[in-house]
């Protein structure tokens, strides 16, 4: 399905660690009704951790214990790596469950406009979490020549459902 040609419709799935992949994936699968569809997952790195870590007084408060420790740049990079690995792993599982292949790209927030490079035609589609609208780079995305579909894939609190309650 991802072995696209120039005529193949492309679906780009913009994800972050803070987004609900299930919801985004579901919309992507619904959009890929054509056999000629091609899926590209674009992981948008969250730059906020690095910024927060640059501040000398920033603390990370443990969810399990409530204890706090200094949030360093090294820790921010570690969180970033974990987030990337975590997101990639979940995408791979979803793809395996859906029996589909996908391409995986990584962009920093300040490189978000590079998504232009993946767009081939106006029939292409960018699926992104709705909270992207609140991010500074959204202005760049809005100028894409393809359709943009924002999905209510709630961020922190929605994700916390999995983390806090084991059901």
């Amino acid at each position, binding site marked *: 399905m991802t072995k696209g040609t120039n005529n193949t419709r492309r679906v780009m799935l913009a994800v972050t660690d*803070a987004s609900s992949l299930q919801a985004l994936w579901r919309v992507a699968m619904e959009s890929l009704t054509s056999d000629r569809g091609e899926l590209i997952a674009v992981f948008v790195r969250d730059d906020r951790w690095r910024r927060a870590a640059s501040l000398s007084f920033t*603390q*990370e*408060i*443990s969810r399990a214990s409530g204890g706090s420790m200094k949030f360093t740049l090294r820790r921010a990079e570690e969180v970033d790596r974990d987030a990337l690995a975590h997101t990639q792993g979940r995408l791979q599982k979803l793809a395996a469950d859906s029996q589909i292949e996908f391409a995986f790209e990584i962009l920093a927030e300040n490189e978000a406009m590079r998504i232009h490079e993946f767009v081939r035609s106006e029939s292409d589609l960018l699926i992104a979490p709705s909270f992207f609208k609140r991010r500074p780079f959204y202005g760049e995305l809005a100028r894409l020549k393809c359709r943009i579909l924002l999905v209510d894939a709630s961020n*922190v609190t929605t994700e916390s459902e999995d983390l806090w309650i084991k059901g």
Partner: protein
Amino acid sequence: MTGVVEQTRIQPVPVSELRKVCPPLSIEPDPGEMAPPMSTYLGQERAINAIRFGIQMEHDGYNVFVLGPLGSARHGLVEKLAKEPARIKGAPDDWCYINNFSDPERPRALRLPAGEGSRFRDNMQALIEEIRIAIPAAFESDDYGNQLKTLVAETQKELDGLWSSLQEQAASEGIALLQTPTGYVLAPVRDDEVIDDKEFEKLPEEKRKEIQDSIRRLSEELKARIETIPKLHKNHHERVRTLDREVTAHAVSVLLEDLKQKCQGLTAVLDYLEEVERDIIENGQEFRRTEQPSLPFLSFDSTALLTKYEVNLIVSNESDAAAPIIYEPNPSYPNLIGKIEHRAEMGALLTDFRMVRSGALLQANGGYLILDAHRVLGRPFVWEALKQAILTKQVCIESPAETLGFASTTTLKPEPIPLDLKILLIGERWLYYLLCVYEKEFNSLFKVAADFDDDVERSTDNVEAYARLIAERVRESKLLPLGAAAIARVIEQRARHADDSERLSVHMRSLDDLLEQADYWARSRGADQVAIEDITEAIQQRDNRQDRIQKKVVDAIKRETLLIDTTGECVGQVNGLSVTDLGEYRFGHPVRITATTRVGKGDVVDIEREVKLGGAIHSKGVMILSAALAARYAPDVPLSLHGTVVFEQSYGGVEGDSASVGELCALLSSISGVPIRQNLAITGSVNQLGRVQAVGGINEKIEGFFAVCKVRGLDGSHAVIIPRDNVKHLMLKEAVVEAVQNKMFNVYAVQTVDEAATALTGMTAGERDKDGDFPADTLNRLVEDKLIQFACKRQSFSEGASDDKGHK
């Protein structure tokens, strides 16, 4: 020789008394006619009454010890006698082991009416199968899913509330709440973007302080809210658990209701079902676990948990059946008491209530248990365990190691089961008497002794009954029928087996053996009926199979390796007769007894005893000789004799006193110098007054001497002298009887030593006259004179010795 014995006026035993012949018996029962129920147990009235008494006595300790020889059909009789009481008693209750939910290591025993056990077990198995499906189905239902979602949503809402209010508060103060994989970070924002250190440094000092204060305060608030999360989780889990209980309870109660209806009236079962219901509801979650194991062999089957509701039916009876009559041929500890099995799992031995197995005691509970005493006593721990069970009236199924306190691992301790049964222990007599003497509790545990008789009187009625018994055994064993003469021949053999022409052996195994072997020989010749020659052939062939040693002895005598004279005369030498018992076969043969005499102190030395080859009874017989000699010949003078008697060429033990009359005659011959005829053999014991008494194995002894004489050539001079009291025991082989009929062999019966000595020496023994003297030219006179001579010689020696002493 015949003339000599006749001269002594000792009459031979009439031919008719050598073998009490049975006239042909025609017992032809109607094919449809059933034999009397106890016909097989002819002559066992005492044992039958004892067994009946023991079986019917309800009080403690009235267990029965059936004592009698092997092969006397004790097992069959016991089973037969127990059948009717068992039918009247009816089937006893069923017993199950069930899980003890509060202490699984102590399985509980559950009592159910007969036949209900298997029904209950099957119903519980069906229930488990239903639960296996119903519980997961209940948890997979939309109803449950929706209710769970609602609970999750409610909890989520509470969590969201905690979070969103804090987030809103932070946002209002220009602070973002970021989430890392393990926690939260509070960072200042401007235009929805987290500001970095460079931007932060550009802020006025006051603003920077304000931000830091806000973050500090929000951090504290965040920590406080995080601390409430575990409680939220706990509440959520409790609510989910309550929901699960409700769902499980609904699913299970419907299923259990049917079963409870079926078990109305069975209080214990209903109580147990209540426990089952509570346990399933408490553990409903467990039955739907679908976790993938970390390793394939650790796979977890949640439905395996349901096995704890299974029922281990250890005693099952049909409701309309009789009380059980169990014979346990191998009463090992596990077979008698029961056992707890284990299964190996991941290198460990595991067990549970389902692996408790019952033994014969429980299988026979409420009925009758038949055991072989020697097997019970021969297997480790069994006798003690059996006693314990009888005394405590309950069975505790545990390993012997556990009983003895040697077990080091945790195992089960099943609840003891009350015991109410009658034990019928079958053993030989010696075992019974040993137990009576050495086992203090034995007599209080086995109060009834059922003593099987060995034989029955050979009355007309009993002979007819015996004939019917033979016919019955033939019918039961599907053997060829016996002709009238053959039946009579069997009757005669049974008298021979009893060692008594006036009694019949009731040893069933030997009877069956004879009938079966006669059947074989009859079929071998293509006959459709067993004839007298088949019986004779069976007896002859059996003897042929077993007479190797007898033949060797006869051969050794024939070749004069064993020295036995059958002609001529000899002083101080007599042919005695002994019997060798090989267990299933015994035979008689002559043995040379010699005696020597000289002056002495009045003692007769038994050489056999001196070399410790003589048994106590034999020694007693020889000691009686001294007394008999003194009483008869030296009432007024000291018995000044030193005599020795010995069994020549005897290299094994000698027991019994059946040679004592022969020994006495050899002594008399030695004292008097009158030779003993070697064509005669003698057997019999003697008392102090010279009375000849009966001995055992009389037929074998006569036949043994006959066999030796026959190989050397019978000429009519050979004879055996036996005690008169033994004549009634004579059931000699036809060959011997025939030889007597043809005047080629003889049997004489004597009552006194005088008669015996007269017969052996050909010289009249003589009786004291009115003056107290024996007549001249009589054996006794010669003996007495010689003993007086010995006394005088001894006195003169004594006086000489005194003179010598005085001289010195």
